[in-house]
């Protein structure tokens, strides 16, 4: 009986020590992972009439392009899906200066190492008349928020 109790306690102590140690290590490691603050999800970008018609306008803060024509407004991500560089506009659509990925005006990949098409975000209007871009909601490339 003594043996079993001693060995039981020994085993128990070892297990507890190990558990405490593991938890401590894990907690320490967890400290290395930062809390992400300041990431905006739904953003206001101003009224629709501040955007020139038939043009892609870049919004630097949120890294998106706003496209407006006579019928409505669309919003697309300006971040290349390859390694995250900011896209430029060219005749065919979008071009990434880092490794040459190119997209058409609907955001589909034409060439280059980009793995997937660009995301289009939902556009709506706030009560004060400003456009709201919801970057948590993706829509199809031809979906347009109508302003007429």
């Amino acid at each position, binding site marked *: 009986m003594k043996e079993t109790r001693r060995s039981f306690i020994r085993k128990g102590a070892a297990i507890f020590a190990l558990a405490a140690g593991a938890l401590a290590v894990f907690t320490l490691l967890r400290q*290395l*992972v*930062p809390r*992400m603050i300041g*990431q905006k999800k739904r953003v206001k970008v101003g009224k629709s009439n501040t955007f020139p018609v038939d043009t892609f306008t870049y919004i*630097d803060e949120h890294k998106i392009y706003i496209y407006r024509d006579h019928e409505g407004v669309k919003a697309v991500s300006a971040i290349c*899906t*390859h*390694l*995250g*560089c*900011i896209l430029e506009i060219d005749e065919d659509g979008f071009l990434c*200066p*880092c*490794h*040459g990925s190119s997209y058409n005006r609907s955001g589909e*990949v*034409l*060439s*280059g*190492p*980009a*793995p*997937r098409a660009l995301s289009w975000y939902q556009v709506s209007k706030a009560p004060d008349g400003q456009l709201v871009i919801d970057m948590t909601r993706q829509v199809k490339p031809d979906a347009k928020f109508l302003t007429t």
Partner: protein
Amino acid sequence: MDSQDRGNIQPESKVDGNRSSRIRKITKNFFLHIHSTRIHPDNLKPTYTFGLGIILGFLFLILILTGVVLMMYYTPSVERAYQSVKDIVFIVPGGRLIRNIHRWASHGMVFVLFLHLARVFYTGAYLKSSKLNWIIGVSMLVVTLFLSFSGYLLPWDQLAYWAVTIGSNIAASARELTDLIGITSGFDVGGFMKRILIGSETVGQPALSRFFTLHVIFLPLTLLILTGVHFWRIRKDGGLSRPGYQESNRDDQPGSEGRIYTWPAVLWAELAILLSVSAILLVIAFVVDAPLLERANPAFAENPAKSPWYFLGIQELVSYSAFSGGVIIPLLFLIFLISIPFIDREKQYTGVWFSGSQGLRITFYSLAVSLIVTLALLFVIVQFGWLRDWFPGMSQAVVMVINPATLSMLFYILWSGWVRRRTGSTRMASIALFTASLAGLVLFTAMGIWFRGPNWEFFWSRSDWPVI
């Protein structure tokens, strides 16, 4: 046993003092007793080891000393970092030189590190020792690379900022795979790696603080500890590798003839190397200034934005496919490196450069194979483009699997397998694979350094680059 004229250094019994005093000079000193009291003359031949390990050690020492000086004047805040570096250059007496020495020593250390890795491999040093030392060496490689990378960010100029931005995006390369499968929103490994690395989505103050802490305390300490274990293992394994090594004629065996006393020969050699390395560094520091571009400006990307030179090979790979170039191939290369001492246990090949003439031949053939295959693939992709240019609309998943990097890797593996069958020796096979991979790495790195310009397009020389 070593009186034969093999071109070794012959021991003599009367050089400096008698035997016991020479032994005691080593054993009674804290710093000196890292050394064994006697050393095999083969290990003293410069053309054997080239002193690469010791050069690395001294470079590390110089980096620590210059680093401490720099640390006193440097401020790790995004508002002040750049100007504090400028003040080091302008105001601190000799600051320009100290900074230059620090920079060129760090580049030198990475370069010499690869040379040392090659030396240890080709002399088959891992064959005689425990596998652990080789693994420790590989970890030291990783730590040194990370040390250099973390230090690269500290000046906070355009070069630093964009190099680290590219590096952080490479760290997030797993996103390519998760995006293709479509699980990124729930399982963003790439994003997680990036966040751990730079503390945020973009490089900013969190990244600077993180890198500074790693660079001045955590990584140097880690490297010091690893160095200690590395040296201890060498002692435990009976000294450095050399031709004709056997368990029976280890350095620490009593009555081993032909040994040279460490004191004073080895000490003179080390002093010579220390002074030569310092002199060379100082010459370079006088002549070439460490670069410092404009202050970091997140609104204006450098084009091309290049990571530090030792990562440009990976950056070239990543331009084909983020996941395979940034995650798979580096991982596979590391796994290959670590696994070498497990796969190859043919002890008879230890100590001799290229393990004999057969190994030398295989090295040359592997070099040739690697050059031809990799250059051909590079030629194709530069001249004709790649799969997505020929078949628009093809999924990137295909390119992820089939691109010049993966194809080269496949080729090297096949080559190495063929060598294995032809020679029946794992040592020869690992020589083949190691040589081919290293040559391939050098080629891709050279491509990234010299032949890639704005928009990552191919240019023969810098003067052909268009002005942006």
